[in-house]
């Protein structure tokens, strides 16, 4: 039997042996965690629009996002966010908190390699693609904007 055939057969066999976990609990957890994070965001939004009525809606939104990002970095530092993430799955990744956590966790992790080569270099090992795709994507959108 040739190798490729053996390997595809083995991969199919392993696929059939994979443990079948129920999807619903993890989907529910993701829904719950994501929903709560968004509701907290709404809380900050209402708070800032109440105290700073002169700000435009987009500025209040930015303030709200900045607050959540700051808090996430703090919770990452004290070692709580990884527990939330392991429980909530995508519910903790898709909100902006996931972006924040993916910047702060390598920064904290690689602190031991020094400030320059540790914190600064490794900070974007996970979130780098988000910044790159974001910038490239926004430039493409800008070009599209020329023609709209």
């Amino acid at each position, binding site marked *: 039997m040739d190798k490729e055939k053996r390997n595809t057969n083995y991969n199919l066999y392993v696929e059939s042996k994979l443990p079948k976990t129920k999807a619903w609990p993890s989907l529910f957890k993701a829904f719950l965690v994501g929903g709560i994070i*968004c509701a907290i965001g709404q809380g900050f*939004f*209402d708070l800032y629009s109440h105290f700073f009525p002169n700000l435009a809606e987009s500025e209040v939104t930015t303030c709200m996002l900045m607050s959540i990002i700051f808090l996430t*970095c703090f919770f990452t530092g004290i070692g709580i966010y990884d527990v939330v993430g392991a429980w909530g799955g995508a519910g903790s990744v898709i909100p902006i908190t*996931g972006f924040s956590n993916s910047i702060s966790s390598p920064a904290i992790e690689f602190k031991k390699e020094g400030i320059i080569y540790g*914190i600064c270099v490794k900070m974007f090992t996970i979130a780098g693609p988000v910044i790159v795709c974001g910038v490239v994507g926004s430039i493409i*959108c800008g070009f599209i904007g*020329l023609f709209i």
Partner: protein
Amino acid sequence: MISIWDYVISFLVGGFICFLGQILVIRTKITTARILVLFLIIGMVLEVFNVYAPFKEFAKAGASVPIIGFGASLARGAITATKEYGLIGIFTGGLTATAGGISMAIFASFLFALIFSSKTKKGGH
């Protein structure tokens, strides 16, 4: 005006977006970075097709807190700056609109990296 409805809709819509993300995680074993990029691009596409603004009007923080909102403001920033300042806006618009979030993420990460150290996990979940 604070209304309970805003919170309910934020919770439901935000939760539903994460629910969709979790389906992807289970089906495709997608990693953190890929999820973030995927939803960022979804946000940009929504903005380009002018769907995001009414969606945000409806879903409040349920639309702006997920990374979709981040993508949408990158795209919106670039488009409005292009209309206002011409070609230069293509390059300045996106990051200008999202500077607050990115700066805060970098600053807070740097700050807390100086203060805290990583701790061993006490078992998975």
